[in-house]
């Protein structure tokens, strides 16, 4: 299984690694990081930039070592625009789209998308669940016109860290 960690999960991992308060969210985020490997956990380019260029403590490098980068592809922005039309916030729409239309290398990427987006944002999870049937229809309509591998794109699940770690 492949999961994209949003920045709410990554910042909780970092908080735990630097010795911050171990809230439930922090504990479950850390457990996720320890349980899965770099072929299973992905971060966005934006999160990678924060961890490499903005945050200066070595704990950021531990997160980078345990994850891989998910790169957007040519349809990521188009699907994100459609998600925004359906009421998703700009960043949420981009992340959901990235989880659907993305790959693991700049050229000749070996994967298309991930199984799930992991977030501590319950509002995003509920919003996706409420709109899932319409989203599936819109995505199918879009992918029907695309060539491989993009015609196989699937909607990700949206889970919180505890939902992932408790199921493993």
């Amino acid at each position: 299984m492949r999961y994209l960690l949003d920045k709410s999960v990554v910042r909780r991992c970092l908080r735990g690694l630097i010795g911050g308060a171990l809230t439930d969210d922090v504990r479950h985020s850390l457990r996720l990081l320890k349980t899965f490997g770099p072929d299973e956990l992905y971060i966005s380019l934006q999160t990678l930039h924060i961890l490499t260029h903005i945050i200066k403590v070595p704990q950021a490098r531990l997160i980078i070592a345990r994850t891989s980068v998910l790169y957007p592809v040519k349809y990521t922005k188009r699907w994100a625009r459609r998600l925004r039309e359906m009421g998703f916030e700009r960043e949420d729409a981009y992340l959901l789209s990235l989880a659907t239309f993305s790959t693991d290398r700049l050229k000749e990427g070996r994967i298309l998308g991930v199984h799930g987006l992991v977030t501590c944002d319950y509002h995003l999870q509920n919003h996706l669940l409420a709109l899932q049937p319409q989203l599936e229809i819109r995505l199918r309509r879009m992918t029907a016109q695309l060539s491989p591998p993009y015609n196989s794109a699937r909607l990700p699940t949206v889970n919180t860290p505890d939902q992932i770690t408790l199921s493993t």
Partner: protein
Amino acid sequence: MPTTMTITLDSEIQEALNHKSRQLHLDPETAVVQLIRDFVQGRLLLADQEFAEGLTVAEYVALNDEQEAALWDRWYTEADRQVGHIIAEASPDALPPR
């Protein structure tokens, strides 16, 4: 080859170190060596150490969840300006989630 380093502690800190080391069943020197090793290897952070530009570790840890989230939102916007234009290409036989 081990070398010797002399550390000057005030008596209050020395006593606290001895007390804590006894609790942990360590001799004080072993505890100090372990702390130095953790610091050098980056596992132990100092409160005044830089966490990000203009922000120390202590200041970051003191942020509440809302303040921390707002800071990451600002960093995300900055990061997006730097990397938001990058586009990759998946191979035609790239694996979708199953």
